């Protein structure tokens, strides 16, 4: 965790960069639409790295021509979940199934408490490690 001071969750693309501005998000969405990928918005308040299935905010958006529609939806999502993690994913269907092509976080809680490491002594003194976000000690919806 020393490489990532500030406890920021780093999942997907651009996560080591400063937060993307709306203008930069528009440019990224435009790139996805130009490749005719479907774009979806997902949110969660469980930042565990193995939590790959986030909740979808509305349906994935197919056949859009312009990023404005996705940005509208993103603003709605931010209004509903101001303190959740929100990411934008782009899916490519050229292989006959929807392959994630892009995924980047576009909203994060103001304060990310980071992860705790717990050790468990197992058989033959083997050590098992477990990480969990300090935020997930609280019930869903009250975490951030």
């Amino acid at each position, binding site marked *: 965790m020393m490489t990532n001071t500030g406890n920021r969750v780093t999942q997907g693309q651009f996560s080591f960069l400063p937060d993307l501005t709306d203008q930069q998000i528009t440019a990224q969405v435009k790139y996805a639409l130009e490749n005719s990928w479907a774009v979806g918005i997902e949110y969660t308040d469980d930042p565990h790295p193995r939590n790959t299935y986030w909740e979808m905010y509305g349906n994935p958006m197919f056949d*859009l021509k312009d990023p404005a529609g996705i940005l509208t939806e993103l603003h709605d999502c931010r209004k509903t979940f101001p303190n959740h993690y929100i990411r934008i994913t782009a899916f490519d269907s050229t292989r006959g199934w929807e392959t994630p092509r892009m995924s980047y976080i576009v909203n994060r809680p103001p304060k990310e408490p980071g992860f705790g490491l717990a050790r468990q002594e197992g058989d033959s003194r083997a050590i098992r490690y477990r990480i969990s976000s300090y935020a997930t000690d609280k019930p869903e919806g009250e975490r951030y």
Partner: protein
Amino acid sequence: MLDADSGVTNPATSVAGTDAPAAEPKKGGGDLDAPQTVDAVLRESQVETVMADLERDLVGLAPIKQRIRDIAALLVIDRLRLNMGLQAQSPSLHMSFSGNPGTGKTTVAMRMAEILHRLNYVRRGHLVAVTRDDLVGQYIGHTAPKTKEVLKKAMGGVLFIDEAYYLYRPENERDYGQEAIEILLQVMENQRDDLVVILAGYKDRMDTFFQSNPGMSSRIAHHLDFPDYSHEELREIADRLLAAMNYRFGEGAREVFGDYLARRLKLPHFANARSVRNALDRMRLRQASRLFADRYRELTEADLTTIEPSDILASRVFG
């Protein structure tokens, strides 16, 4: 490292877009290379070719063409004002097209999307044509997502709502059409930069629709009435349609077709250019059967392309 399992291929190309300026600026902002004359804007946007196509391809419709020229002029001048650093509030360009069937409403809407795109008013210039079914849902809570999805698809282009008056059904107070209208109104007002809405339909019913939805009427700046075509214009349309399909009128056939039109105009359900096209299609059928009957005759190109008077006279309007 927490990104190990995010399951995302990370194409280097997509990172490149990060610091590029997002979406080319909608309108040139005060820079020195910006065009300073009407001519420069016209040349840069190549809007004139679209206007010329419109002038050439569409028969009649003088008031419509004039209004489109006015709108184009306003947008060009606004571009110049913006280049000088003057304030140019982007005008509201939502439109209503009313007119009888077959007067060219959809065709013009398609051209309109192209023109607005050339003038940088909309970013993409595609046309999304919908009817009530695409906007209004079947049950409670179905309408809003449906309408929003259509609106999102139309963003950056033109949303064309055909027979818009079906959205409002006063006889059923639980109709979900009203909900779609409210969402439409909200987006038309707040996201004027993102899309242009064109409502189309028959004149009298559109008038009733606007009377019962004053909010809609006041948000639409341009009410365009499509006039019916005159007899002469319809004949010209027939000539062009035939030429486009590689057919031509044989000797005397054009006059017979004029006679056909005069008789057809008096009958009910005349749908202008659409009726002309249908009539031509039926003539092609008759021509084909006529040639078909002559099994062993060697057919020349002229035979295959000529519509004879007899193909027209077989129509039931002459009965």
